[in-house]
């Protein structure tokens, strides 16, 4: 018996077509050679596959292939963008703007930059999780060098208007970085149209492999970055190290498939998410976290009053879902994202994130609704003040 997988915001299953392409790059008969070794034919074959993948990733976000820098994932891409750009442009200014609900892959580099003498303004989103463009505009200063805003929040699924923020940054000559880990391949995003200078991507959220991502870097005019690593000069010196051909190829295929099926798949997943919400919203004390309509197709975050989050997860062994707490250890800290939206610690801990993906079915949704309703009723029945 396996659990119904509703944790696609954490990671997704690799598409079989991606697996097939990756396997072609591993064995002795495959394209396993070092793609930097273009002096021989196997190396050139691997190099061609890398460049094909680069083109596939670039096409998904409206970029030129030369803008793509391979990384180990979105965390590294975010770090390279923030630390690299801030350190390169430190003589121009030492102020950055971001939001309180960003992923730690953005918040932690911001804290590191504060230790290095930079100032960071952390914008507070409204109770619906939205950071309005006017808030960004109001936070800009003469010495602001970079704004960082995630496209889709990983916990609550709200979508930020990155196009509007990008335009106001571009008008002022301020760099704009977007973490698109949760949105790429699911929502339209276009680095030129949305005036994005630095775009962080990852493969494993869109049915590609873990361990590979990319940073899309503006080329016209060329944007400066101080690399995090020193080594052999790969990726124009921005990210040295031998490329993992099978991972990169997997990301390319995953992005190509995602771009091909995006509209149809997003509509189907949005419909399933709405069914899930309809099924849960009938329970007393259930609240939706985040904006009701400005949200990504596959992420539903709910707070369920009257049950404790860890016990709720425990009571749902048949579901693979995430709670509203860090929950990496036995000490479960309430989610800082939900707290930033105004939820109390208790309500933040009584929250579930259900995230749907390519392989989620209507039956999965129906079973999940039934399981959650049953678990909530059972836990409420044994809570003080709730017994009938």
């Amino acid at each position: 018996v396996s659990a119904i997988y509703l944790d696609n915001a954490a990671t997704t299953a690799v598409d079989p077509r991606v697996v097939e392409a990756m396997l072609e790059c591993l064995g002795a008969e495959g394209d396993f050679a070092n793609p930097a070794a273009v002096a021989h034919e196997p190396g050139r074959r691997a190099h061609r596959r890398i460049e094909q993948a680069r083109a596939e990733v670039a096409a998904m976000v409206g970029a030129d292939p030369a803008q793509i820098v391979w990384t180990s994932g979105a965390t590294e891409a975010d770090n390279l963008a923030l630390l690299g750009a801030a350190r390169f442009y430190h003589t121009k200014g030492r102020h950055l703007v971001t939001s309180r609900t960003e992923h730690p892959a953005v918040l932690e580099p911001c804290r590191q930059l504060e230790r290095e003498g930079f100032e960071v303004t952390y914008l507070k989103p409204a109770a619906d999780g939205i950071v309005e463009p006017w808030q960004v505009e109001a936070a800009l200063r003469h010495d602001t060098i970079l704004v960082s805003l995630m496209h889709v929040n990983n916990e609550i699924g709200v979508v930020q208007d990155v196009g509007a923020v990008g335009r106001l940054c571009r008008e002022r000559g301020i760099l704009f970085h977007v973490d698109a880990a949760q949105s790429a391949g699911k929502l339209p995003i276009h680095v030129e149209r949305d005036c994005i200078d630095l775009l962080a991507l990852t493969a494993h959220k869109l049915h590609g492999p873990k361990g590979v991502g990319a940073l899309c870097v503006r080329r016209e005019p060329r944007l400066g970055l101080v690399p995090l690593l020193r080594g052999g000069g790969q990726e124009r010196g921005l990210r040295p190290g031998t490329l993992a051909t099978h991972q990169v190829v997997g990301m390319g295929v995953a992005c190509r498939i995602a771009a091909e099926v995006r509209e149809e798949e997003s509509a189907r997943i949005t419909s399933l998410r709405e069914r899930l919400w309809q099924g849960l919203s009938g329970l007393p004390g259930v609240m939706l976290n985040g904006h009701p309509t400005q949200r990504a197709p596959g992420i539903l975050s709910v707070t369920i009053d009257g049950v404790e989050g860890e016990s709720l997860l425990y009571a749902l062994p048949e579901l693979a879902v995430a709670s509203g707490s860090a929950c990496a250890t036995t000490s479960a800290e309430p989610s800082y994202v939900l707290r930033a939206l105004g939820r109390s610690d208790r309500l933040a801990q009584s929250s579930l994130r259900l995230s749907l993906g390519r392989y989620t079915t209507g039956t999965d949704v129906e079973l999940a609704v039934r399981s959650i309703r049953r678990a909530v009723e059972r836990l409420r029945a044994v809570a003080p003040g709730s017994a009938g």
Partner: protein
Amino acid sequence: LNRDDPRYGAEVRRRMAGLVGAGEFAPGAGVAQARAGDREQGAEVQLQVRVEAGRAVELRFLAFGCPHFIAAASWLTDRLRGATRAGFEGWDWREAAAALEVPPAKFGRLLVLQDAVRTLAGNWPGENGSTV
């Protein structure tokens, strides 16, 4: 599907599966009640004991909290059956910590249970007239 979750020991799993002792007694003579904890802090419990001839003959619990906390409340309803008031007064949370393999980060929640048990001792039926 929880059987391989390393955070929970066998006793927690057994207690959470059955929720033995959950519920409330009907109001009546010989029954004492205590509440402790705070839902806002993540742990709240109601304990009841029915006493006959100076001994606890049955206990009931209601609890809001993590699986360790709920399981510990359930475990108490068996552990304290047959105990006298003095047994309630002297009960120590460390016994539950050991029996249920509670991680140190959650020890504070067991103190909530200890508070409830000692309050029950104070409300012991027949001693000062406290009944539900």
